[in-house]
């Protein structure tokens, strides 16, 4: 059955989701001011009204634009619409997830968050890939699988919506750390320790917000980090490498060609953890380095000299 799919945003992921949906013979409209490089089987509109008659809508804008995009979407969607986002980030000091923002700004309730080692180019080109969808609604899973799933794209599902989004946001800043460490020639061992312990930190914080710890060890968390180590060239990896080459952390995002929210996310996660008495050494070191309060070398020493605990 042909679905009416809408995509908000024509960046890397927006374009990939639109192309994957069109490849499955669905009727696709992208809401964008530009609509670069899109085949003519995909309609482009700059009018949010174009989303009103859609069955499934993907929100594919950077997290910092999610609130304003959701607000616009709120003018045209109702209880019939299914909305799924692919933004990697948490909003504000209270670590608000994007699905929470969608819930606040729109009348849509059948929501989901798509995350994991989803590589935009692979999705666009139909090369084998996989992702995890956090949603409490089986209908959302069915429709996303119908829109973009299939033999080349495996979409796993979980009801831990908060966990998927927190893990995904954590992967953002852990990617910077790993890419930096790789850039300065760290061995495989420390990389694995940082990836795993960093994810454990995030899982502890996530549990206080209702997330399940195992979600951080699945596709949305460690699985996605494996893609980074295996060479996925995403913005965060470029920032980490730029830092390894001596770029100031505060300007590394511009050098890498994009805006990175991970510093703020890490900072807010630390503040939340601190309030609850949870230890977050890796995130602390990351934020200290990003603010220029500590050199990467000092951070490494500080982390290695910490008392070792039970896993």
């Amino acid at each position, binding site marked *: 059955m042909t679905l009416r799919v809408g995509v908000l945003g024509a960046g890397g992921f927006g374009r990939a989701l639109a192309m994957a949906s069109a490849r499955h013979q669905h009727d696709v409209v992208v809401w964008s001011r530009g609509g670069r490089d899109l085949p003519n089987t995909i309609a482009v509109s700059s009018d949010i009204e174009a989303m009103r008659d859609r069955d499934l809508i993907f929100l594919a804008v950077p997290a910092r634009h999610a609130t304003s995009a959701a607000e616009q979407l*709120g*003018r045209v969607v109702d*209880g*019939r619409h299914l909305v799924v986002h692919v933004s990697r980030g948490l909003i504000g000091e209270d670590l608000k997830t994007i699905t929470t923002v969608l819930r606040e700004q*729109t*009348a849509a309730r059948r929501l989901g968050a798509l995350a994991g080692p989803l590589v935009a180019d692979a999705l666009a080109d139909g090369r084998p890939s996989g992702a995890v969808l956090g949603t*409490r609604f089986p209908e959302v899973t069915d429709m996303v699988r119908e829109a973009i799933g299939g033999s080349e794209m495996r979409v796993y599902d979980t009801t831990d919506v908060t966990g998927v989004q927190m893990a995904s946001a954590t992967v953002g800043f852990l990617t910077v750390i790993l890419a930096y460490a790789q850039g300065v020639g760290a061995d495989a061992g420390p990389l694995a320790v940082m990836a795993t312990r960093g994810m454990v930190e995030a899982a502890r914080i996530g549990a206080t917000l209702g997330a399940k710890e195992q979600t951080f060890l699945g596709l949305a968390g460690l699985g996605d980090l494996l893609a980074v180590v295996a060479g996925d060239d995403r913005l965060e990896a470029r920032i980490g490498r730029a830092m390894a080459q001596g770029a100031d952390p505060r300007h590394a995002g511009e050098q890498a060609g994009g805006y990175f929210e991970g510093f703020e996310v890490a900072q807010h996660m630390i503040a939340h953890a601190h309030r*609850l008495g949870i230890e977050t050494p890796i995130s602390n070191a990351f934020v200290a380095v990003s603010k220029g309060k500590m050199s990467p070398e000092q951070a490494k020493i500080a982390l290695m000299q910490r008392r070792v605990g039970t896993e």
Partner: protein
Amino acid sequence: MLKRLFSERPLRLPHLKPYVPRPSDPSIFWFNSERNDIVSDVVNRICGAHEPDRGRLEIALNDAAYHEIRRLEKQRDDEARDRLGYWRSMIRRIGKMDDAEQKRVLNSIVTTMAQDVAGNFDPRVYGFARQAIPRMIAGLMEPRRFTKGFTMPQSEVLSRVLRVQGDIEHLNHLQSEGSLVFVPTHSSNLDSIVLAQALEVSGLPPVIYGAGKNLFTNPIISFFMHNLGAYRVDRRIRVQLYKEVLKLYSQVMIERGYHSLFFPGGTRSRSGMIERRLKLGLLGSAVEAFTTNQVRRVDRPIWFVPTTINYALVLEAETLIRDWLTEEGKARYIIEDDEFSRIDRWVAFFRKVVGMRAACIIRFGEPIDPFGNVIDDKGASLSPAGETLDPGGYVERRGTPTVDAARDAAYTRELGNVLADRYERDTVLMSTQVVGHVLFRNLVQQTPGMDLFSRLRLRNEIGINRKLLVKDIGEARDRLMELERNGAVHISDVVREEAPDALLEQALTFWNGYHNATAASPQDSDIVVGDPSLLLYYQNRLVPFAERIADSGQHKAACEIEALGVHR
């Protein structure tokens, strides 16, 4: 024997001629004429779901027999003598029964359960209760006026003590347009009584509600419960079929337009905190009622009214907090030996309460549809952008309304989260809670690094300078007023209007003299913390706001207090 007669068999007044409801009567006045139909509807739907599948049917019968045998073997009472033989004989025969017999047995079990659950509504008892109960409570509060109470047109005492807040006009308009489902916070067994009174004084309709079977053991309470539309919930029964009967009974009533009430917290908040972890069973029955009506093309809206019941003094505070602090508390669902069951405690409680202005505030929050959307004056659901919505769209799958249990369970969960947020926003903080919080925060500040249980053992050991305490209370109140202006919470008029030292004095007067333990008492220039667990109970209401009302010096203690609520 007499007690059992009253608790097991509903006492009803004889009818010389049946009451014919008038069009202006609330929906519940039609209940008796529909009662048998409702019971049949429940039985037919449950049997209809089990009968086509012999495997499922057999599991249901085995589950019923197994759990009932276990329960009755433990009970060893008259009911056990009557029924244990039946279940033991049945469990041996289930496998040998043919399809027809299994269906017949299922029908008989479910019918018995549904009839036991279903209530009764007698307009005469309702008319009597709405006059007499407030006056009886007023009489308990002011015994000198007890005899006069029944001749007084309106109880001034009660209206001074009980305050109702919220947009009553809006609710009054909605009651004739759809089914209202009141979902209050739950602190005390007095909740259903004060809520019934709040509905009455606000001109809102009477509601049906599930009452624990333990309340039916008192013949007088049982008589009123039976005849005012309450349905009986026996929490001792673990049978899956029974749970289905309860849920479906609630669903069918809501589908048919009966206004309802249930406590989503399931049981009284043991800690005194605002509930966040809600039980979704009955909430789900209301969501499914909406779906079923949509599928049947019945256009009857269902609206939830988040309601907070706020007490300055809680009848059962000491038992509840003790229960929360002990391991035993985790397993005890029904407490039968608390203050609610002791008339001397009632009298002491009401005598204390009579001197308090607005000792209980019931706040009816903004009504919402089953999907958390607000409702306009005409009963239409509104999107966050202010657009009118068709709530039926939420249960459509590709344009057709469908029943989908997994989807409705997800909606119910979402609704639970919305209600929990609403409870926080609609809580009205009382003087004892604010003073309790400031005292407890000082205790935490003075005992750095100590865990909760060590702190609770510090009886009469921690003194706080009175002047500093009064200053802290004033600052906390100012910050709460700021939160109130931002729509984060409400505070009572007493907290808003009284001077901080008067608030402290009032709180001490209210606690000491009613509770057996002394919460705090003056000693020279200090206020000395007596029983920290009692303070903990009252202060727990402020857990979500602790950090926001603390200054930098109090921040660490406030974080520790806020951490108490992480998994609440």
